[in-house]
């Protein structure tokens, strides 16, 4: 059990460290590009499905648009609690704890539902 707890701790700590560093880096680049270019136009609000938003990030990122880096940073931050949740489900599955795998999947479904309903304009 102690090995499992230690395994969970390492996974969670790793996810948190990497995602905060990545998010900070992307946001700093985004704000930096915006300020350096002296652009008076603020980046537009992203909308649509996660794939639409990701597609726009990749497309605009090639042209070094500030908005692409900022939205990428937001996505990393948004997905951090989701990654922690997925890690929790994985650890529960390894411990053969079916009840908490199911509960974790219900929570995951609710988070995904938020994205889907928002894109539908609900």
């Amino acid at each position, binding site marked *: 059990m102690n090995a499992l707890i230690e395994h969970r701790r390492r996974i969670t700590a790793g996810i948190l460290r990497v995602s905060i560093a990545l998010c900070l880096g992307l946001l700093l680049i985004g704000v930096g590009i915006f300020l350096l270019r002296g652009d008076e136009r603020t980046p537009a609000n992203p909308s649509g499905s996660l794939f639409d938003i990701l597609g726009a990030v990749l497309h605009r990122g090639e042209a070094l648009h500030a908005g692409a880096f900022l939205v990428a940073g937001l996505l990393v931050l948004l997905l951090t609690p989701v990654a922690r949740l997925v890690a929790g489900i994985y650890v529960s599955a390894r411990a053969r704890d079916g009840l908490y795998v199911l509960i974790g999947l219900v*929570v995951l479904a609710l988070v995904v539902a938020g994205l889907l309903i928002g894109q539908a304009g609900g």
Partner: protein
Amino acid sequence: MSPLLTVLVVLSGGVAAGVIGSLTGLGGGLVIVPLLTLVLHMPVPEAVGVSLFGVIATSTGAAPRFVGTGLANVRVGLFLQMAASSGALLGALVSHRVPAHFLFLIFGAVMLYSAVMSFIPTASDVTGAAVSSPFAGRLRLASRYQQDGRWVEYRVTGVVPAFGVMIGAGFLSALLGIGSGVFKVLAMDKLMRLPFKVSTATSNFMIGMTAATSAGYYLSHGDIPPLTAGAVILGVIVGAYVGGHLMKKLSSRLLRRVFAVVLSLVALQMLLKGFGL
């Protein structure tokens, strides 16, 4: 206001939210939403959406403090998260249908409640409930944590009423752009009789996930201005770091009370705006 000035104002607000959040334990959303609506006159849904990203940043930034301590009860967190995320989804769904003045009124009331709670001494319950309720037993919620080198076992009760409170906490979080930590801790501490430290750590575990449920909605709905959100998040992360260092030098009890007074004043301003005055 020029975009550059907006970035600077929002960045400073984010730093203030991060510092205050880490020093007082109260969520940064209580600073960010009034700043964006009252000072920058941003539409309420955008301010709420941006604030939710600030809440995720606060929760993620504070999380390493709790990871590995064994304080967060992951089973309790996951079970209650079903309620909090359901409430958050419901809150996000109705958010665009609730008139702005009504949101100001609710926000003002929640701020006043948080301010009052800051004056009430926090519980120092270490062992929690004497026996687990049958439902908590079936869910295997009882656990233990380490304190001063020894393991403290605790039992859990009041799962159903706490589940109900979590739906409300999630609903308010999505509607107002706050972490609702004050309600989450209250439900776990008073209803489930969890040790106070466990309640705080488990609440932190839940806040990010609750905010992510509704932040996803606001993002895909087109309510997140990336520049403002980016500046808020940068500010919050820097502020939380600074706050963590200041915490060792300043009396957090005194700061909490000073912040409660400021909170009350801003709450009054929100209420006045809600009443159209």
